[in-house]
């Protein structure tokens, strides 16, 4: 049975990553977020036989190791600002091995079902001045911003003018035939004006059919 045991600060060197964790997180991006936003969410940790195993937040833990247990050189670091001593805030649970695995799987899997509202995302990205630590960058901003369509004049310049308005484009006939039909077609149209041109062969066939 899963039981919440309480909140606790636990030293990084006492925290074990979940064995066989299938998720591969982006540690540098998480570290950027820790520096910009601090630790805004506790690690989910299982206490078992006096050991502490991280169920959720394994890559946050790795990013914290990357950061180091002491203060860093960045004076704006929000993790350091939060009296950081190398002991992340953890939510402690006791549970069975099966339950621990299920929590680890669920935490990684369920977010994959999320859907994104691109318009809402664009609005949020536009609403903040500094994207650092948000997981997004200026390229993303350009990607999600609705772009103005080109003007007709710009399109006209790009594609050029219609050359012959009565025949803007020729239809394409495209279909597969058996080898026998293909051979029959080639034999029947061998006297076409230009036998090297399928269009000429087809026109010849039509003229024959029309009598």
């Amino acid at each position, binding site marked *: 049975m899963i039981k919440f045991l309480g909140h606790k600060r636990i030293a990084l060197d006492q925290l074990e990553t979940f064995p066989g964790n299938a998720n591969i997180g982006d540690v540098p991006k998480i570290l950027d977020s820790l520096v910009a936003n601090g630790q805004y969410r506790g690690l989910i940790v299982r206490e078992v036989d006096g050991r502490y195993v991280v169920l959720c937040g394994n890559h946050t833990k790795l990013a914290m190791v990357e950061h180091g247990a002491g203060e860093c050189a960045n004076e704006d670091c929000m993790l350091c600002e939060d009296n950081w001593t190398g002991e992340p805030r953890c939510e402690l649970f006791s549970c069975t091995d099966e339950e621990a695995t299920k929590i680890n799987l669920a935490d990684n899997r369920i977010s994959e*079902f999320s859907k994104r509202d691109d318009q809402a995302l664009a609005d949020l990205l536009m609403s903040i001045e500094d994207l650092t630590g948000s997981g997004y960058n200026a390229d993303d901003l350009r990607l999600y911003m609705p772009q103005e*369509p080109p003007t007709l004049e710009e399109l006209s310049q790009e594609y050029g*003018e*219609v050359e012959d308005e009565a025949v803007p*484009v020729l*239809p394409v006939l*495209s279909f597969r035939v058996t080898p026998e039909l293909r051979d029959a077609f080639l034999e029947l149209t061998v006297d076409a004006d230009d036998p090297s041109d399928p269009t000429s062969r087809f026109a010849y066939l039509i003229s024959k059919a029309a009598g």
Partner: protein
Amino acid sequence: MSIRVLVSYHFHRDTDLDQFVAQLGGNVDLFADSGAYSAYSTGAVIDREKYATWLARWDHLLSVKSNLDVIGSVQGGADNIAYLTAQGHEIMPVFHVGEPFDVLRQQCDEHPYVALGGMVPYLAFGAANRNRAQVMRWMIKAHLIAQKTGSVLHGFGCTGSLFLRDLPFYSADSSSYMFPRKRCLMYMWDDRKQVLRSFHFRDLSAVRRYAHVLSKYGIEPGRVSDPGFMVSGSENFDEDRVDITAVAMRSFIAMERSLRSRHGVPAPFEGDPVSAVTGTKIYFVNINTAYVDMEPIIRVAREGLL
């Protein structure tokens, strides 16, 4: 509840459109087309008196009425528009590929909403890629002409996302939302790149690549990749076809929302809040009332995505 549907006289001459619209929840932006092109390709001929009667019969449901165009005859089309107008209908003229642009100039002088037609042979079966530059030049010229009079354009059979992404069409119609159930070919709108992504859903690597998009538009990728999905004669065949069609429809509705936000083409007429909205609008072509044709439209209409 609302949805945009294009119905043609050729296919719906005997359909009770009151019942059709009621099935969809009543609030339908209904585009009436003669179906002349479909009729022509099957050797059928459409009687203009009967088309006029059909338009009058369902007038209370129709937000757009397009002309009975005559393939290869500008004068024939002009005669029909004169006749239908004399019967009291406000008719949208159709300008075809290959016709002199002066025809379009005159149509734009006289009408706020004009259709571009005859493009399907140039766009179908992958031909759009080969013909893109030439078709684009032709469409740009048409838009430049329409811009001068403030008219807006409908693109018959034109849901090629690259054309719609760059050109300010007021509306277009799509039958390619039926491709998933007919050809296992998905068209999924990518909001970020503003393009339709196409892939065969029997191709497992493509399903994996576009798994997030399939989920977004309402079907689990695992279901689509199941070898038993949409197998002819299976117990779930019809339900699978309905569900996969609804997925494609949601994708086209997302495309409409995105294009509307991008182009913001003003409505050329006044009307109810469903039909007289800012474009680009996308109409779903419906050619019959069989279960697998109607049910996806009914379901998506109920979702009120527009």
